[in-house]
């Protein structure tokens, strides 16, 4: 009898689990619909889908990113951004007389699956790769693509190792470059003399930025009065770190961390009546989307972000993006859009033929990439060096009345 009741309850629990599953499915239809729209779009401008590598009338770009799973928001944005750029370029008559074609493959933010996606795209006949979206998969794919000599440009793989092979370039800043850029920005705009840093010593992202920031701060004449860490294990209480920054008289607190911890820091600082300038990097992007967050706490917060929908130059893109996919673009979409335009510029510069094999394309692009300059959504006058790193001015935004305002 007892066993029966237990069994019954277990079944009930399992049933509630499935019910929850379907509930959350219906909740995420917007994102899924966005993905579907773009998949349909990709099919529309892929008339010779069965032709494979032999069909020489379009230039084929493969896109890799997490289209499902927890990081799907990034991958879908990258897919949509590339899709929108290709549609625009084709509508304007293509590049050098031929059309572009895009094919996005899912890697679920997994290094092994990303390599599988890369191989699928190679079989499809890809001549250049936009991807992978996230750092670890990108490093894995870079190892394969450099062995094959396939050109690869990652929109958002920010880890240093992503662009280690000479065939890989990126659109976003590398992690340490964000730290350097932040210190330069603070120094040049004379935002503060005494600076405190609060960072997460348990992630490479945060400690990488902090290290570069501290190094560059000395050159900019900034005095680091407090250099405090926390880890993922004690990311709830920041009162001591804030007290130390306050005691030391910090005028600016640099937060190279993700927005979730930052939202707690802002709350605790306001409880302590501590109101320095808070300054973050791209991980801070999203703080206004925290549910139930009192945006008044973020008033005056500054962050370096490559892209903002409120910027004049990105208005047309934002409108077209919302019209096509029904959601606001984020920086991943902008990075990917710029990556496709970089490929377009490289085709024009090098004059590669539409039916060139990927190794020829790669050799031509490796030189062409260092010679082009594009005005993209994430920077004007973007250029690349041979190491694959972009050179663009960082943009800072300040939160004023609950919205980003370009500085």
């Amino acid at each position, binding site marked *: 009898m007892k066993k029966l009741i237990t069994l019954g309850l277990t079944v009930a629990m399992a049933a509630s689990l499935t019910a929850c*599953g379907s509930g*959350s499915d219906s909740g995420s239809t917007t994102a899924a619909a966005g993905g579907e729209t773009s998949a349909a779009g990709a099919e529309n401008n892929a008339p010779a889908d069965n032709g494979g590598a032999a069909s020489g009338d379009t230039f084929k770009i493969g896109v890799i990113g997490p289209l499902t799973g927890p990081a799907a928001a990034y991958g879908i944005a990258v897919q949509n951004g590339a899709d929108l750029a290709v549609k625009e370029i084709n509508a304007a008559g293509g590049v050098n007389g031929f059309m572009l074609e895009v094919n996005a493959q899912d890697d679920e933010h997994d290094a092994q699956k990303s390599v599988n996606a890369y191989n699928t795209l190679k079989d499809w006949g890809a001549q250049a790769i936009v991807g992978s979206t996230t750092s670890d998969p990108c490093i894995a794919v870079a190892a394969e693509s450099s062995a094959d000599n396939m050109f690869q440009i990652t929109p958002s793989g920010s880890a240093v190792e992503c662009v280690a092979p000479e065939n890989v370039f990126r659109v976003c800043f590398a992690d340490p470059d964000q730290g350097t850029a932040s210190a330069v920005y603070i120094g040049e705009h004379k935002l503060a003399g005494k600076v405190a840093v609060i960072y997460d010593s348990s992630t490479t992202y945060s400690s990488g930025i902090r290290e570069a920031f501290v190094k560059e701060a000395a050159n900019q004449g900034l005095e680091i009065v407090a250099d*405090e860490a926390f*880890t993922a*294990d004690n990311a709830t*209480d920041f009162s001591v770190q804030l*007290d130390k920054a306050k005691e030391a008289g910090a005028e600016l607190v640099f937060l190279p961390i993700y927005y979730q911890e930052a*939202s707690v820091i802002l709350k605790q600082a306001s*409880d302590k009546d501590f109101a320095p300038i808070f300054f973050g990097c791209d991980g801070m992007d999203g703080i206004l989307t925290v549910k139930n967050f009192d945006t008044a706490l973020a008033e005056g917060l500054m962050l370096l972000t490559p892209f903002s929908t409120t910027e004049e130059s990105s208005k047309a893109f934002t409108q077209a993006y919302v019209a096509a996919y029904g959601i606001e673009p984020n920086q991943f979409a902008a990075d990917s859009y710029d990556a496709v335009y970089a490929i377009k510029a490289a085709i024009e510069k090098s004059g590669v033929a539409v039916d060139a094999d990927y190794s020829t394309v790669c050799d031509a692009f490796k030189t062409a990439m260092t010679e082009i300059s594009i005005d993209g959504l994430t920077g004007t006058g973007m250029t690349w060096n041979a190491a694959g790193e972009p050179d663009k001015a960082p943009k800072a935004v300040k939160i004023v009345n609950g919205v980003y305002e370009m500085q």
Partner: protein
Amino acid sequence: MSFLSYLISGISLGSIYAIIALGYTMVYGIARMLNFAHGDIIMVGGFAIFTVVSTLGMAPLLGIITAAAVCTLLGVTIEFVAYRPLRGASSLAVLITAIGVSYLLQNLALLIFGSNARQFTSVVTMPGLKLAGGRLSISGETIVTILVCIVIMMSLTAFINKTRIGQAMLAVSEDRGAAALMGINVNRTIAITFAIGSALAAIAGALLCSTYPSLTPYTGSMPGIKAFVAAVFGGIGSIPGALLGGIILGVVENLSKAYISSQLSDAIVFSLLIVILLVRPTGILGKKINEKV
């Protein structure tokens, strides 16, 4: 002045550890099992309050009552479904089941609420104190947390020593078989223990999220583990020990962050734990248990 400020924030953090540790220690003391899902019940309590207060817009007090009811029901259900069938099984099997329940709760919350963080609106409306001309500020949450912690500890001690159910709990804790022979309903006693422990988790959830206002499906797991350490520190099974262990842990953590290194604070806290356990294997206030041969 800054020392006082670090000390007070340490006591505040420690009091939260202590309330969570009380739940761990009660369940361990009476049912002889480590309920690793305790931290996740705290998280469920946090989400219950968030739903009632922030989503439905009701009064904070109603939120806490709802959370206590939800958590009590959840605690009793978990005990009935997952732990009771294993009453005779090895303690390792029960431990693994508890870890399984912990992951189940985290993933259910992930399914229902998603992984995005929510900013928790504090349920404490009391204003903070400003002393020494504003140089020392103590938030309302800190004061309430410390008071609630002391009240809970005193009423739990009284409950266990003065009531019939409390005495039954002590008996079950001492010798389950003998207690059953004396006519004590062991299953019911353990279920009541879980109910009380889970209601405490709801209160801990309210205070934890009010003081550190970020709510995710993983909110309870790290404080839960730290509180478990606090319970071991003070002597697991001992109610005053949980309070003492929690507060020592919080104060040591904050002072080492302040005066030694914020990078090393966890390493220092856990080294201290090792030293204490080497000197006193049962914890600061733990009872020495003679093994029956």
